[in-house]
């Protein structure tokens, strides 16, 4: 459900930045631990974009993992989900760094003719 709020915030920010030009593409960075469902966000984005400069624009979502370290074997661990495990099998990981990203990286707008 919160994806609709997020989608509206994305549309609002991009609409403002595009200054009336049509937006064709929005590139979004989403952390793997950020509690956002990409499918749901994509659906909500289409709904929120209706009637704005973003109508019909595509939403590209780039997922980034969090990083952590295994407390048992010391290896660096990339966390792509909240219950990530180290390659050694251990679940005993340090608190993750990153993974909560939710950032509009860029937009592609149509060039003025």
């Amino acid at each position, binding site marked *: 459900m919160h994806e609709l709020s997020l989608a509206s915030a994305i549309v609002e920010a991009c609409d403002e930045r595009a200054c009336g030009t049509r937006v064709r593409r929005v590139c979004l960075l989403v952390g793997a631990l950020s509690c956002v469902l*990409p499918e749901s966000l994509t659906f909500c984005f289409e709904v929120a974009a209706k009637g704005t400069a973003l109508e019909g624009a595509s939403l590209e979502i780039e997922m980034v993992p969090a990083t952590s370290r295994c407390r048992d074997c010391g290896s660096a661990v990339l966390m792509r989900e909240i219950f990530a495990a180290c390659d050694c099998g251990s679940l005993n990981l340090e*608190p993750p760094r990153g993974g909560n990203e939710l950032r509009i990286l860029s937009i592609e707008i149509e060039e003025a003719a």
Partner: protein
Amino acid sequence: MCTTCGCSEGGQARLTDPVSGKTESLADPEDAHLHAPEHFHPHSHEHGHTHEHGHTRVSLAEMPLAGLRSPVQGTMLRLEQEVLARNNRIAERNRGWLRGRGVLALNLVSSPGAGKTTLLEKTIRELQPQIPIRVVEGDQETSFDAERIRATGCPSVQVNTGTGCHLDAPMVERALQKLDPPSGALLLIENVGNLVCPALFDLGEAAKIVILSVTEGQDKPMKYPHMFRAAQLLLVNKTDLLPHVDFDVETCFDYARRVNPEIELLRVSARTGEGLDHWYRWLRARMDTAGLRAVS
């Protein structure tokens, strides 16, 4: 899911058959995938699936300027803007205002019916004589909860989110203006009953407290990990019902620690009062830490 190579990135909707244990992605292979057709996929595909697939950021210089499907030239504008920038900015403003005023704000989250309002009523009746308490009630509709709080003599405001499933920082900002909590007050924010969305929205609070009742099942921390990860304290409520339900508190605590090793854990019954002295002690300690004088 990455539809280019099919590897799973986690976080997407999945369907699991409990009998076979088989899991499948619910992402629509045609158009609900994460990457548009013109997506610039930054890694080579001569690889096995043990590779470090971090979807490393592509520099904008490498990005094609025009989508493949459109002949019209497009222009890339770099934004680097947080999606929740506005909410987070107002949350920080709330936090600064609360600190300046000397008010400790706590954000109480749970699923509907976990006993947040009953816990608040008890807490107010117990502590109000020593600590000024103010309450923000969040619900989609009705003022039932704010009326219950008002019956205790505690000033409160109700925020109705309508279709919204969570409180956000601007709502709390307006509630603060209305409530005008005095210096040294404890502000208890009862969020909309929902174990998912409120995890994402900073209101400017000092801490989130998640309340879980024993009738909900001991596995909730694993099923809704984001909320338990965002919280600093877990209150397991309705412990008076433990003899009647299959709920093992220690197992629940283990699950919560798996999601959030730093989380503090308490068991209470807001109805009978069992364990509430620990909760009051926790509150007073938080007020001391915040530099607010709590009368003990």
